[in-house]
C-alpha cells in the first residue's frame, strides 16, 4: 500500500504564534485519515498549507512519493487535491451546473458556454457516487446537506483523488451526517483518499482508518481507531482527562418560571413557523428542546426573547405576560439568552472584549453614570469575567473577532451569567465548539440549574439534549410532538419524535 500524500516536518509561524510545528501527516491510498484537534490546534492552517493558501516556513509535501511545491489552489488541483471548505463557496443564485463550472468554463466554438456538457458530467458523477444532485437546481433552493454534495461534485469534477473535508458535519443534521458517511464510503470504494478534519470524536471512530491528533500546532500522536476510545481521543486533544458525561444530581424543580401556552410565531419571511406550542419551565430544572434544525426552535427562542413578535398564544414569565415586550424589558426581568448564532446576535466582533462583556448592561450602574461610560468598572468587570470563565485571550482589549469560537462562546456565557437570572435560554450553546469548551459550558449550565434558575436548552445535538435535560420537548414542524422524561427515554424514541412519528402511532400502525 502506498502513501498518496505525505506532509513532513511542516512548520508555519505567524508573528507571535507557531501555528504548526514540525507536523508529520501521512495519508494512505484509499483510506480515510481523520485529523482531530480542538479549535485552534492548527488543523485549518495545515490544510491551507496543503492547499497552497499559505507557504510553510519549513518542511515539504510529497504527493505519491514525489516532492511537490504547491503555490496556490491551482497547483493543488493539478496534484489531484481537492478541498471541501467548512463554509461553502457557492453562488446561491446560480444553478448547480454553473457553480461547478465556475473557473473552468468549457465552451462551444470558443464563445458559447457548454452547460449541457457539464450537466451531463455532473449527472455521471452524481450517479457514480450516489450523490443525487440535480444539475439544474438553484443552490439557494437546496438544503445544506445537498449544497455540501455540490461542493464534493466540484472537487470530483476537477478530478481530485485526494479530498480534504474540513469539518464537513458541522452544519449537518444527524440524518444528513448519515448520508455523508455513505458518500464517503462510496468515494473510498472507488479509490479516492480522504482527509477528514473534525473535532467530533464519535464521527472519527465511525469512519476513520487512521487518526492523527493535533494539539497546539503539534502532532500529539497517531492512533489506530480500533484501539481508540472517545475518552482517550478527548484527553489527547485537550491534553488532560476530560469528562464526556455531564455530572449532575437530580433536579429539584420548583415554581414555574416560564409558562408558554398555544404560542404561534411568524418568522422574518412571515411564514408561520411556530404553531401552537405549550410547555413550562420550572425553577431548578432543565427543559431540553430537541428537533432537527429548522422546525421552529429558532423562532420560538426569538419570541421568548422579544426578537420576534408573538402571533398568537401567551407567554408568561414569572407570572407576568410577555406581549409586545422589548428585548430589554425581557432581559431586565431576569432572562439570560445564549443566542443560537453567536456571531450574529451574541457578539460585536469588531468591538473589544470588554465592550462585549457589558453589551446588555452598558447603561446601568456601574458601567454608566448618567450618560457617560465608566471605563474602570468596564475594564474591571471584563478582567474578572475573563479570569472566572477562563477565556483565553491576550488581554481584554482585543476585538472579540480575534478569539476562537470556543472563547467567543465563553465571552457570551460569562456576560449572560454575570447578572442575576431567573431563566436561562441557551440555544445551540456548544455548536462548533471543542471538547474542552463543551465540557465547561455544560457544567456552567447545570450550575445555573442547581442555583435555582429555570433553564431552556435548545439543541439539534441529541447527545447534548440527553446530557443536560431533565425533561425533553421534541419539536417537529412548529409543534411539540411530546414532552418526555429524560431518564425514561431513549435516543431511538427521540429520533422517531424528531422525524414526526409518535411512538404510540408507530406501534399502532404496526
Amino acid at each position, binding site marked *: 500500500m502506498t502513501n498518496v500524500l505525505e506532509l513532513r516536518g511542516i512548520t508555519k509561524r505567524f508573528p507571535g*504564534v507557531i501555528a504548526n510545528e514540525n507536523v508529520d501527516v501521512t495519508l494512505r491510498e484509499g483510506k480515510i485519515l481523520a485529523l482531530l484537534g480542538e479549535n485552534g490546534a492548527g488543523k485549518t492552517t495545515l490544510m491551507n498549507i496543503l492547499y497552497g493558501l499559505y507557504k510553510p516556513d519549513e518542511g515539504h509535501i510529497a504527493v505519491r512519493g514525489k516532492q511537490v511545491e504547491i503555490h496556490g489552489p491551482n497547483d493543488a488541483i493539478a496534484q489531484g487535491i481537492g478541498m471541501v471548505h467548512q463554509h461553502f463557496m457557492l453562488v446561491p443564485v446560480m444553478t448547480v451546473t454553473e457553480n461547478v463550472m465556475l473557473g473552468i468554463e468549457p465552451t462551444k466554438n470558443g464563445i458559447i458556454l457548454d452547460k449541457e456538457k457539464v450537466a451531463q458530467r455532473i449527472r455521471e458523477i452524481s450517479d457514480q457516487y450516489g450523490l443525487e444532485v440535480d444539475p439544474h437546481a438553484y443552490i439557494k433552493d437546496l438544503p445544506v446537506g445537498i449544497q455540501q454534495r455540490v461542493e464534493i461534485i466540484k472537487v470530483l469534477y476537477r478530478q481530485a483523488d485526494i479530498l480534504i473535508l474540513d469539518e464537513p458535519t458541522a452544519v449537518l443534521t444527524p440524518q444528513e451526517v448519515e448520508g455523508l458517511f455513505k458518500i464517503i464510503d462510496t468515494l473510498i470504494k472507488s479509490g479516492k483518499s480522504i482527509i477528514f478534519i473534525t473535532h467530533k470524536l464519535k464521527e472519527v471512530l465511525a469512519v476513520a482508518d487512521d487518526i492523527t491528533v493535533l494539539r497546539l500546532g503539534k502532532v500529539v500522536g497517531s492512533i489506530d481507531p480500533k484501539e481508540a476510545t472517545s475518552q482517550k481521543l478527548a484527553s489527547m486533544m485537550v491534553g488532560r482527562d476530560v469528562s464526556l458525561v455531564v455530572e449532575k444530581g437530580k433536579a429539584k424543580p420548583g415554581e414555574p418560571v416560564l409558562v408558554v401556552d398555544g404560542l404561534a410565531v411568524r418568522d422574518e419571511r412571515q411564514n408561520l413557523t411556530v404553531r401552537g406550542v405549550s410547555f413550562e419551565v420550572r425553577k431548578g430544572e432543565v427543559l431540553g428542546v430537541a428537533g432537527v434544525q429548522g422546525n421552529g426552535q429558532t423562532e420560538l427562542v426569538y419570541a421568548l426573547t422579544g426578537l420576534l413578535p408573538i402571533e398568537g398564544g401567551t407567554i408568561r414569565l414569572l407570572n407576568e405576560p410577555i406581549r409586545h415586550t422589548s428585548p430589554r424589558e425581557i432581559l431586565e426581568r431576569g432572562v439570560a439568552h445564549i443566542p443560537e448564532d453567536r456571531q450574529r446576535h451574541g*457578539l460585536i*466582533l469588531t468591538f*473589544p472584549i470588554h465592550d462585549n462583556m457589558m453589551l*446588555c448592561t452598558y447603561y446601568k450602574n456601574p458601567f454608566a453614570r448618567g450618560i457617560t461610560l465608566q471605563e474602570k468598572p468596564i475594564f474591571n468587570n471584563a478582567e474578572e469575567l475573563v479570569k472566572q470563565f477562563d477565556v483565553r485571550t491576550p488581554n481584554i482589549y482585543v476585538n472579540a473577532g480575534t478569539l476562537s469560537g470556543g472563547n467567543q462562546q465563553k465571552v457570551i456565557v460569562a456576560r449572560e451569567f454575570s447578572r442575576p437570572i431567573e431563566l436561562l435560554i441557551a440555544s445551540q450553546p456548544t455548536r462548533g465548539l471543542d471538547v474542552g469548551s463543551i465540557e465547561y459550558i455544560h457544567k456552567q449550565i447545570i450550575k445555573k440549574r442547581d442555583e435555582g434558575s429555570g433553564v431552556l436548552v435548545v439543541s439539534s445535538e441529541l447527545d447534548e439534549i440527553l446530557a443536560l435535560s431533565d425533561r425533553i420537548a421534541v419539536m417537529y414542524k412548529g409543534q411539540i410532538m411530546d414532552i418526555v422524561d429524560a431518564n425514561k427515554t431513549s435516543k431511538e424514541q427521540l429520533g422517531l419524535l424528531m422525524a414526526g412519528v409518535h411512538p404510540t402511532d408507530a406501534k399502532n400502525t404496526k
Partner: protein
Amino acid sequence: MSETATPSQTKTGNRSSLAQELLVPVLAVVTGLIIGAIVIVASGANVFDAYGALFTGSFGSPIRLIEGLQVYFSTGETKELLRAIYPFTESLVTATPYIFAGLSVALGFRAGLFNIGAEGQFFIGALCSAFVGYSVKGLPMIIHLPLAILAGALGGALWGMIPGYLKAKFGAHEVVNTIMMNWIAFRLSDWLLNGPMKASGFRPVTPNVLPTAELPRFFDDPLRFNLGFFLALLVAYLVYWFLFKTTTGFEIRSVGANPDAAKYAGMSIVKNLVLVMALAGGLAGMAGSAQVLGVDHWVGQGFSAGYGFDAIALALLGKSHPFGVVLSALLFGFLRSGATNMQSRAGIPIDIISIIQGLVIVFIAAPAIIRWFYRIRSIKTEETVLTRGWGK
C-alpha cells in the same frame, strides 16, 4: 460599511497600533502626490514649480514669513506679517466646513448609514443661519451668534432626520433619500434666493448677515480666519466624546457594527437611526453656518463648492474617526487652497488637485494596493492568527 467601523478604541491604541492606523492613509497621500507629479510632468509642466506653488499657496512662503517677522520686530508694522500668514489661515478657513461636514458623514458611517445628504444639509444649514443672521435684529452678539448657529444646526438636523425616519420606519434606503433631499434642498434654495430671501438688487443672494451674527475674525481684511475653525475643533472633540464615552455613542456604534446584536442587547434600532441622521444633518448644517457666518456673510447660488460630497471622501480617509476627520479636513483644506495658487502661479489647472484627491480616496478604499506597493504586512493576518492559534 463594516470596514469603517472601529479600530479598537481603547488602551490597545498604543503607539504601534496608532502608527499602523496612520500608515496607510499617510502613504496613500504620498503616493497620490507622486502620481500627481507624474501627471504634471506628462502635461509638460515643471513639478517643482507646481508643488512649490502648491506649498506656498497652502502654507505660505517661509521667506516672506521671515521678512514679515523682521519688519514686525523692527517697526511694529504687521502688514507684511499678515500677508505672509494669509495662505496658511486661508487653508484653515477652507478646512473649517470640511471638518463639520466630514464629521457628519463619519457619524453616519459609525451607525452603518451612508449620509450622501451632507451637501443638501449644508445648504439648508447655511440658509437657516443666514435667515436668522440678517432678519433677527437688535440682539447682542452673545445671543444672536449662537442663535444663528443653532438655526443652521436645527435646519440641517431636520433635513437629515427625514431620511433617517423613513429608513427606520419604512426601510427606505438612506442613500436614495438623502440624494433626493439634496435635490429638494438645491431647488428650494434656488427659489428662496430668487424670492423670499433675496436681497435687493439683481443677484440672487441673501442680504448680508448682521455683524452681531458674524463669527468673529482674528485679523483685519483680507484675512478671513475666524472663530469657526476653533468651533469645528471643539465639535470634533464633542463628537469623539459622544461616540466613545457615552452610552448613546456606544449604542450608535453597536447598531452600526452589528444591528442584530444591538437588537439582542435591547437597543432600539429605530431610535438610534433617527438620532444619528438628525445629528449628522446638524453637523453638516453647522458646516453651512460656519461658512456663511464666518466667511461669506451671505448665501448665493452654488454656495457650497461641493463640501458635502468631498466630506464623504474625507470621512473615509479619516476612517470615520473624529480626529481622523480633522486631519483629513486639514489636508483637503491645504490642497484646495494651495491649488488656487498653483493655478495662478504655475499655470497648473486646479483639477490636478481633484485627481490627487481621487487617487488618495482610491488608495484608502482599496488599502491592498498600498500594502502591496509598499510591502506592508496586513494587520488582518495577525487577527487570523489569533483566531487560529490561541492557547500559547
